[in-house]
């Protein structure tokens, strides 16, 4: 979009507000607080960016269908929305290096269904979330019969009703569920795969802003801010954040 030519940092400062695209339906990364405010790990990070710029912030909840367009068009200045970093996405938006987070994929399955490896999924009805990037692999490589819903509440209900035998999703979410008594009959039977990095993105051409955000992310890793946030929101710090923290605090 033509807007991207002008420096967005200037625009943000002039406006006095940074507009950030975030998720609002993925606890604990971005979700609604009791009063409807956007809270979670990513909104906190976004607020930190605004603080560093010395401006106000405004959140725009985004979904897969509109987030790229919002960013390209200038509707949002920055996107921190649990987006997995892939080559295709890099073509469309400018994903900032280094990655700020990462996730692995695993299964939430009823105990005793006879799945111990990913390959065992063949022809079984498996629930998933629509649009997840590992859906294709689950289908194409493991041959699962994928049943994808829009939200986790639907999936968990379907799983309990026996409409599918397992739920393929981010491992951190599954781990959190397994802590709850309701899911005592369930397990995480296979190895975590696809440790996929998440990227936050700015529009193409925003090199100044890119450089700025790149430094910010490094600083988050260096100071261990992300690990602190994980702990604050009740997630076991994942290997990725620990590794990054070590890497950046070393030099």
């Amino acid at each position, binding site marked *: 979009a033509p807007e991207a030519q002008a420096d967005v940092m200037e625009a943000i400062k002039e*406006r006095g507000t940074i507009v950030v695209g975030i998720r*609002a*339906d*993925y*606890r604990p990364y971005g*979700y*609604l*607080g*009791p*009063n*409807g405010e956007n809270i979670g790990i990513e909104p906190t990070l976004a607020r930190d960016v605004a603080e560093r710029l010395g401006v106000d912030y405004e959140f*725009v*909840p*985004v*979904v897969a*269908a*509109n987030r790229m*367009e*919002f960013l390209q*068009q*200038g*509707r949002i200045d920055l996107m921190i929305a649990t987006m997995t970093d892939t080559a295709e996405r890099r073509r469309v938006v400018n994903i900032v290096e280094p990655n700020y987070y990462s996730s692995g994929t695993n299964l939430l399955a009823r105990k005793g269904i006879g799945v111990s490896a990913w390959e065992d999924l063949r022809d079984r009805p498996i629930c998933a979330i629509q649009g997840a990037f590992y859906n294709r692999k689950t289908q194409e490589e493991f041959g699962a019969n994928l049943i994808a819903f*829009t*939200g*986790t*509440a*639907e999936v*968990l*209900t379907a799983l*309990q009703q026996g409409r599918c035998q397992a739920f393929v999703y981010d491992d951190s979410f599954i781990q*959190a*569920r397994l802590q709850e*008594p*309701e899911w005592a009959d369930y397990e995480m039977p296979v190895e975590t795969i696809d440790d996929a990095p998440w990227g936050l993105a700015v529009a193409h051409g925003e090199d100044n802003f890119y450089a700025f955000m790149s430094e910010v992310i490094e600083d988050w890793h260096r100071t261990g801010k992300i690990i602190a946030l994980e702990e604050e929101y009740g997630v076991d710090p994942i290997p990725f954040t620990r590794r990054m923290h070590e890497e950046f605090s070393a030099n």
Partner: protein
Amino acid sequence: MMVRGPKGHAGLGGGTDLPVLLPAAERLQRRSERERLLGAPRLRLRGRDLAWLCLMLICFTGYAEAQAAAAGREPISIALLRWVPLLFQGFVFNIVISVLSMALGTVLGVVLGLMQISLLPPIRFSSWFVTQFFRNAPWLVLLFYCIFLLPFEIRAFGMRIPFPDWIKAIIGLSLPVMANVSEIVRGAVRSIPSGQWEAAESLAFNRNQTIWKIILPQCVKRMLPPWMNLYAILTMATVLASIVGVSEVMTLARRVLAAEVRNDLLIPLYGMILVWFFVYCYPIARLTQWLERRYAVKL
């Protein structure tokens, strides 16, 4: 009974307290009279449907509540109540968007529909094309194009005038409404016997007068049910507005479910929204039924 003045004039000045309402009252009475004659009394259900619906939901919530209690979790009703203010805000968005895009779409649609019956082939053809395109295109796609084609802010005279998402939603939704209304108008006009056109023309009504005074009034009754249908469909389609970035009630519901991470909220939560929609739409349905009766023409 009917009060007739000396000139056979109905009601007026008959010494009743509500003279203004009399013609309508008389008309209504006549209608009910007629309905009796035709042996087809129209059903008046008032709150019965609603009562049933609520009963169903109470049973269901009760069932879910018991389950939640058994699992030692926070009661569902408490969890729901916490989110009501937020969800209701979203619901208001749905209503505002539906009302405004219906209004806009209807106005545009009537114009487009009349263009479809125009005597000038270019107008007729182009309006037919516009109608077909916007009617056949998926609503979601039209809304998506609105993100592209409409700016998020307008810069004029060095000022930034924001162009809010909900206005985009209204515009995006009014397009298919327009196309549907256009077809409804065309269909209704086409179903009027040609004798009516001829009678009006022979009385030197011009085309506009014929359409507005003779044809459309007779169409009102048969346009109302599909129009109401359309409004219902539109209200339900406001859910799609989330793609342009409007946090309407269904989007919020999805977020609430994600925030609560409790799947036993799924049905009660959507059930509550269902009741809201019903409580909002049902009176409108009744109103249109009343209007339909009001504009009924004995054939």
